[in-house]
C-alpha cells in the first residue's frame, strides 16, 4: 500500500469512528445538518475502499485512481433561497487530493404546484440510471458498472491516424496515446462517465407515473465538461415511467460532438469538429419488492472519428454494454449482491484483418454488505474480470469498503 493510501485509510478509520476513538465518536451526525431554519442542508458521504492491486487497470477511473483503492469524501449542500430557487452543490475529494466541484447548479421551480424544474450549472447526468445513484448507499458493490467506469482507448483530445494505430491501444484505455492532437499519453474515456458531471441547462417534468428530462450541455456522455472544447453542445433526453410501485423503466438518448476542436483541426482542418459525434442510446429497468432489488441497464454508443490514413477507420466505432444487478437482504442490516456486466466493441479492419477496436471485457462481481449502524455500512466484494486483449487479460480482485453517511 502506498503511503498516500495508508494515510487515507487512517483518516478513514478516524472519520468513521473506528480505532481507539473515545466515546466522542458517537456524536458524528447521523442525519443531514440543517442550518438557517432548514434553508441550508448539508450531508456527507465518506467511503474508504481497500482492495487488490489492479495491474490490469480494470477498475481505474483515470490513470491514478482505482475504484477499489479509494478514499472519498463528498459533501453535498442545498440552499433553499425560496420556494422557487434552490442552489445545490457537491464537492468531492479523492485520496486527499484535489478538491473538486462535482455538482453546482441552481434548481428553479417556476410553478410550485407543478412538477417542472429547470436546472442550470453543473447538472446531474440526464442519460441512464446509474450515474445518478448515490454511490455510497445505492451501489451494493464496490465496483462500478463497466459502461460508467471502464476506460476505453478513445480520447476526445487525440485521434488515431489509422485503424492499426487504434487497434494497438486495445485494452490500454488506462493510458492511451495517438499521433493526432494531444500526443501525451492520457487515460481514455468511459462510455458514460459517472465521475464527472456535465455543464449546461436541464428541463425536467414529472407526473405520478412518468418523468421526462432534456438537457443541453457542453460535453458529451463520455467527456462531461465545464467549458466546451468544440463548437456545438450535446443534447440528451430521458424518459422514465413507473407503471406500478417498485418498477421503473427508463430510456435515454444523447448526441453531441465528441472530438475537441484542436484534435479535429489537426486531423481534417477547421470547421469539422461538429462532425465527430458521440451518439448513445440506453435502456434501464429496476424492480424491487420485499427484500430484493433487481436492476439492468444497457447502453449502446457510437463515436464517429475522421477516416485518415490507411487502413482507414471506415466505420463508426461502437460499444454495447449491459449489466444485470441484484441485491437481496438476508436479515436486518445484511445483504448479498451480484452484478454481471459485459462491454463489447464492433470490429474495424486493420492490416491483420477485422478486430474489435477495443478489447471486450466481462466482469462478474459478487459481494455482501453489513450495516453496523444505520449509516455505517461495510461492504466486501470479489470480482472476476476477463478481457480479450491488453497486457493483463484477466484478474480476480477483492475489496472491502466502509461507507459512512449523514
Amino acid at each position: 500500500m502506498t503511503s498516500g493510501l495508508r494515510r487515507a485509510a487512517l483518516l478513514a478509520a478516524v472519520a468513521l469512528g473506528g480505532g481507539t476513538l473515545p466515546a466522542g465518536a458517537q456524536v458524528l451526525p447521523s442525519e443531514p445538518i440543517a442550518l438557517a431554519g432548514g434553508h441550508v442542508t448539508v450531508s456527507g458521504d465518506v467511503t474508504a475502499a481497500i482492495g487488490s492491486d489492479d495491474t490490469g487497470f480494470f477498475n481505474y477511473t483515470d490513470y491514478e485512481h482505482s475504484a477499489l483503492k479509494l478514499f472519498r469524501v463528498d459533501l453535498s449542500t442545498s440552499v433553499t433561497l425560496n420556494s422557487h430557487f434552490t442552489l445545490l452543490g457537491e464537492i468531492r475529494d479523492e485520496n486527499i487530493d484535489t478538491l473538486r466541484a462535482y455538482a453546482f447548479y441552481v434548481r428553479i421551480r417556476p410553478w410550485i404546484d407543478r412538477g417542472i424544474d429547470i436546472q442550470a450549472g453543473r447538472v446531474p447526468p440526464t442519460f441512464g440510471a446509474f450515474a445518478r445513484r448515490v454511490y455510497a448507499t445505492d451501489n451494493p458493490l464496490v465496483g462500478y458498472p463497466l459502461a460508467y467506469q471502464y476506460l476505453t482507448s478513445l480520447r476526445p483530445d487525440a485521434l488515431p491516424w489509422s485503424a492499426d494505430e487504434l487497434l494497438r491501444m486495445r485494452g490500454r484505455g488506462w493510458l492511451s496515446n495517438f499521433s493526432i492532437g494531444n500526443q501525451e499519453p492520457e487515460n481514455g474515456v468511459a462510455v458514460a462517465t459517472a465521475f464527472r458531471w456535465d455543464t449546461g441547462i436541464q428541463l425536467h417534468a414529472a407526473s405520478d407515473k412518468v418523468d421526462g428530462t432534456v438537457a443541453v450541455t457542453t460535453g458529451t456522455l463520455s467527456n462531461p465538461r465545464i467549458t466546451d472544447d468544440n463548437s456545438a453542445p450535446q443534447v440528451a433526453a430521458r424518459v422514465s415511467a413507473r407503471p406500478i410501485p417498485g418498477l421503473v423503466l427508463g430510456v435515454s438518448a444523447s448526441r453531441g460532438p465528441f472530438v475537441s476542436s484542436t484534435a479535429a483541426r489537426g486531423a481534417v482542418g477547421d470547421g469539422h469538429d461538429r462532425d465527430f459525434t458521440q451518439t448513445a442510446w440506453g435502456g434501464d429497468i429496476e424492480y424491487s419488492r420485499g427484500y430484493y432489488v433487481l436492476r439492468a441497464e444497457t447502453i449502446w454508443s457510437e463515436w464517429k472519428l475522421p477516416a485518415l490514413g490507411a487502413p482507414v477507420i471506415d466505420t463508426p466505432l461502437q460499444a454495447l454494454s449491459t449489466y444485470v444487478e441484484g441485491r437481496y437482504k438476508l436479515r436486518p442490516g445484511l445483504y448479498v449482491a451480484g452484478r454481471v456486466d459485459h462491454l463489447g466493441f464492433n470490429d474495424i479492419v486493420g492490416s491483420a484483418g477485422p478486430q474489435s477496436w477495443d478489447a471486450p471485457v466481462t466482469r462478474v462481481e459478487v459481494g455482501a454488505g453489513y450495516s453496523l449502524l444505520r449509516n455505517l455500512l461495510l461492504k466486501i466484494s470479489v470480482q472476476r474480470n476477463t478481457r480479450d486483449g491488453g497486457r493483463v487479460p484477466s484478474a480476480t480482485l477483492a475489496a472491502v469498503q466502509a461507507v459512512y453517511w449523514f
Partner: protein
Amino acid sequence: MLLIPRRTRKIVTLICFVSSALIAQSPSAIRGLRAARNGAIRGRVDLRKVPTPSEPRPNVADLGAAVRALDISDRLRSVVYLESAPRGAFETVEPTHAVMDQRGERFVPHILAITTGTTVDFPNSDHIYHNVFSLSKTKRFDLGRYAAGHSVPVRFDRPGIVRVFCDIHSHMNAFILVFSHPFFSLTDNDGRFRIDNIPPGVYNVIAWNEGVQSEPRAVTIPDGGIAEEDFVLR
C-alpha cells in the same frame, strides 16, 4: 440530529428493566398498596427547543425535486414515564395492537409508546414503496419494501427504545418506546400529560423527547390524589 447519547439509551432501557426488579418500596408501603386508592400524576413538558423533522439529504443527483411541507406538530410530543413501577405492574400489562402509519413520507405518529407484547402494524398509506427497518438492539427487523395498502405487523417483546427508519427515504424516522409497565404517557402537542392508576408512593419520574431526557425526579403520588409535576427539556 445527533445520535442519542449512550447514557440516555442506557437509562431509558434501564427504566424498563428496572421495573421488573424494582419495586423497591418498603414492606409497609407495599401493604399499603393493597388498601390505598390509586392516584395520578399530571403536568406539562416544556420543550425549549422543538426538534425539527429530519431534512431529506440534499438531492443533488435528482433531476427535479418534490416540494415537501414540513410538519413539526408530532415533534412537540414527549413521553413521561415512571422509572420504577409498583409491584404487580407487570402482571397487568396486556398485549395490544398499535399502528405506525407511513404517510406523506413520514412515520405517523413520530413517537409511539407501547408496552411489551404489543404488536405494531406498519401500513403504507403512500402511493410509493416504503420500507421499515430498525437496527436497534431492542428489536432488529426489516420489513422489506411494500406498496400502498399493505401492512406488516411486528411484535415488541423487549423493553427499550427502537429507532425506526425507511431505507428508501432517509429522512423518515420514528421512535418506539417499549415499556414493561403501563405507567407512561405521551404528551399532547401542548406538552400536557397524565398518568393514572398509580398506587400511592414515591416514584422517580422522567420526561423524554427525541434522545434527551430529564433527570429522574422523585414524585409522591398521594392516596387517591393527583401529583403535579412540570418538566423542561432542551
